[in-house]
């Protein structure tokens, strides 16, 4: 078919520009990360560079893990506002169960119970909204209220402002800990990439985000994959809770608060389209989580005054989204 061949050839010439055009968002997200990294290196050059590097890894670990899970539901165009409170309750439960049973076994049991709970919540989050015909944000709103209450009640029942896990879970050596975190992030990134790019889970969640009806008519069970997507997030939430616990060893009433919004900001900075669909990428999670952490770190190390930090962050956020999310043509985006 000579006709087809010619058209392919002509388009190959323009494919470089097409590539740049189609990947503007990703390229800019990476550029943002690169700039942050450069600023980080400039302001942290000195004896504490290694320390600061590990501090960034620590701070970014929880964000990365949660964001990796969140990609699965954001790719369907959903969001979960209950994430922070879920993490809070999971950490508290891990401590309570861990202390009750005692020893490393207690921690393991605590983690497993939490994992089961997280997966169950994911399933509820995904299934309820479909069965009851609710927007997914409503179920997550419900879970947010529920978990906020649960966190309050759990902490009240302990009678303490903060509770501590008796078993040490954090390696004593800083470098070991950093390596452990990098290991966990890398492992989850590999698992996440595998599931998002090479299995039905990722393909179907993206398809659901891009066009629910078309996905259904292509034989995708909305209930099943929505539930599995949320369960993937649940899994990550449990792991993230554990990582958070290794970091602090304690938990309180406000543990985890704000993560839902932070994760959303991370993903936006990573170039994730909030409406989901085929442009969703797993890399958004890592790029966004590290950009966000570095931004916060760089602002403090640069010595930006406390009351100006939020302002500068807001401006940078606006600049980044203006560069990445701008829709130049057509009607105003909604």
């Amino acid at each position, binding site marked *: 078919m000579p006709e087809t061949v010619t058209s392919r050839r002509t388009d190959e010439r323009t494919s470089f520009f097409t590539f740049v055009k189609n990947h503007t968002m990703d390229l800019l997200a990476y550029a943002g990360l690169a700039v942050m990294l450069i600023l980080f290196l400039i302001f942290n050059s000195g004896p504490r560079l290694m320390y600061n590097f590990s501090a960034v890894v620590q701070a970014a670990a929880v964000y990365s893990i949660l964001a990796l899970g969140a990609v699965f539901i954001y790719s369907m165009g959903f969001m979960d506002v209950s994430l922070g409170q879920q993490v809070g309750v999971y950490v508290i439960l891990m401590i309570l169960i861990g202390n009750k049973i005692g020893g490393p076994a207690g921690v393991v049991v605590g983690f497993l119970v939490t994992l089961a709970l997280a997966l169950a919540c994911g399933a509820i989050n995904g299934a309820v909204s479909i069965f009851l015909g609710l927007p997914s944000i409503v179920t997550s709103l419900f879970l947010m209220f529920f978990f906020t209450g649960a966190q309050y009640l759990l902490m009240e029942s302990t009678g303490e402002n903060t509770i501590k896990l008796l078993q040490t879970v954090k390696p004593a050596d800083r470098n070991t800990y950093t390596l452990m975190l990098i290991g966990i992030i890398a492992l989850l990134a590999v698992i996440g990439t595998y599931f998002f790019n090479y299995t039905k889970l990722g393909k179907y969640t993206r398809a659901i985000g891009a066009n629910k009806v078309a996905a259904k008519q292509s034989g995708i069970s909305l209930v099943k994959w929505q539930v599995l997507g949320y369960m993937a997030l649940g899994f990550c939430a449990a792991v993230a809770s554990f990582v958070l616990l290794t970091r602090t060893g304690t938990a309180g009433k406000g543990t985890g608060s704000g993560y839902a919004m932070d994760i959303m900001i991370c993903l936006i900075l990573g170039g994730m389209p909030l409406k989901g669909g085929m442009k969703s990428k797993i890399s958004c999670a890592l790029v966004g989580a590290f950009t966000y952490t570095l931004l916060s770190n760089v602002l403090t190390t640069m010595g930006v005054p406390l009351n100006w930090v939020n302002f500068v962050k807001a401006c940078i956020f606006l600049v980044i*989204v203006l560069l990445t999310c701008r829709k130049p043509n057509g009607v105003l985006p909604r």
Partner: protein
Amino acid sequence: MKLTKKIFLTLLFPVLMFLAMWAITAANPACYVNGKFIFLGFDLVRFVVLNACQSICVALAIWMQLKNGRFDFSNGAAMILTAIIAGNIGLRSGSPWITLIVAVLCGIVLCAFTAAVYMLGRLPIVIATIGVTLLYESLTYLIFGGGGISNFYQNDTLSIFGHLPGVFLPTLLAMGIFLFYSNYTVTGRKGKILANNQAAGVNIGIWEEANVSQTAMFCGAIVGLAATIYVSQNQVLPQSGLSTAGIMFSYIVPVYMGMFIGLASNDVIGISIAAIGMAIFNYGLNCMNLGGGGWQQIIMGVFVMCFYTFSAQLDNIKKVFRRMTKKEAVA
């Protein structure tokens, strides 16, 4: 629909809520102090009016944008920032009227700015408004020494719009503005068109940018009125980390319920009625000492869930109901 039926359906929710809370509190020993039942009383009226008025204003502001197809995250932040600015200026001037005027102007300016970022940036509305929310929140730390405004409500003469009967003025104004906007202005009608079919509206020749900014200004006026009540009732502290979205969300229940209740009449009445119902609900919880802490959150969550489920499944419920009555008839 007949008028009486309309009125009946509209008032059903708050009346049911009142009766339910009455029954529940009456059965609860915590609601008796020295043998006296505390649910019924003037405090109920005051609480319901003050809270409902505040909810109505915020909910109308949210609804005005939502109705036009835009979910504006920044309403809460605009309200807080407006409250701080208008409160401080009002405090220095010593006049509640100046506060009101400044608040309305400030609300308009802030909402117009949000609209400008949205239109000029051509960003998806959620992203644009999150960005603006972060910006407004950060400004709360930079203006008036970052102290927010804590002593405005303490002044009886200044805070008349936060108390009975002054609170009715901003509330009625907000309702009036909303009704005027949606029924008697070109902007409102065009907004409706755009909300229902954006592309067609633009093709027909509606200048979207103009409409968005005009709507934002109407919305801003309502935000200003909401801020006036807010600063007259509360201490306003600087906010960060999208916490203003949380403040806004705490008023969002009447919006959604109002959409539903309003089916029987119109949206403004629906929202007002829903706000009153929710205020009664909250007052009942307070009486039972469930107004704070864990249980309130859980009850609230269950309530929101049930309400949504009910409205989402209404058609099915009706169907089941009809089938049941039919079967009975056959039997």
